[in-house]
């Protein structure tokens, strides 16, 4: 039997790796992938807790998270393409227009 605390620890570890990737990497696309990593870590926590509680709510929320992730990926990648078309870069440090 897999312990719930192991699953939660795994979820926390993957979430932390996602946060680290978002903070350390400067390539917008890789930062975006790190966000997907964080979303999936939280999905794992939802599924594990839902499984232990014996309710379907966790899985339903994961379903919604996936939909929101799909919408986010579509809009985010469109923004990246539009930035690349104008600035020829995907490096986050080069985009300083709104920095004071």
């Amino acid at each position, binding site marked *: 039997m897999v312990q719930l605390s192991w699953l939660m620890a*795994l979820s926390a570890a993957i979430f932390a790796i996602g946060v680290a990737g978002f*903070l*350390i990497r400067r390539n917008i696309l890789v930062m975006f992938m790190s966000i997907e990593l964080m979303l999936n870590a939280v999905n794992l926590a939802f599924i*594990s*807790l839902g499984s232990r509680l014996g309710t*379907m709510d966790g899985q339903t929320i994961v379903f*919604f998270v996936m939909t929101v992730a799909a919408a986010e990926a*579509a809009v985010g990648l469109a923004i990246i*393409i539009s930035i690349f*078309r104008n600035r020829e870069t995907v490096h986050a440090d080069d985009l300083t227009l709104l920095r004071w």
Partner: protein
Amino acid sequence: MPLVLFWFLATLSVVSALGVVVQRNPVHSLLALVLTLVSLAALFIGQGAVVVGFLQVIVYAGAIMVLFLFVIWLLNLPVETRSTGRLVVKFLGTIAVAALLAEIETFSMPGQLQLKFSATHPAGYGSIEALSQTLFSQYLIAFEVTSVLLLVAVVGAVALARRSTMVEVQERAEQLASREKAA
């Protein structure tokens, strides 16, 4: 789910998640991410969430990741040669992440959560019937709102990523030409 399988999938997902962060080639990062998603999907199925696990493979590892791959190819991204970011940022980022991890580990342990856990699953748990029962009764409004969200996202993505029309391109070229003539 057998313990051996759990440890194998857990190791695989953590290692490939690290791969997403450390790879310099964006395509390699993406392939590592697909590996993470597939191993997480197997963990979902092992927890009894069969439908969500398959959706994870089809929608996430299939559709969304292919979208990422298309964008990487479309932009023709080179392998990063220059160092990414300053060392101070990396150092502080790592410390912040370690603190965050410790915090989550402390507060998300099952002993802290005070929930009533049941040992057995009801019949049909994780099946598509059970999922749709919840989705179309308790979460119906959220489901409808999500469909609107997807529509807005599609329209927004098309509006953001479209090339400007030929008329706009010509107008811009004429503006540039007249500016050069004036200068």
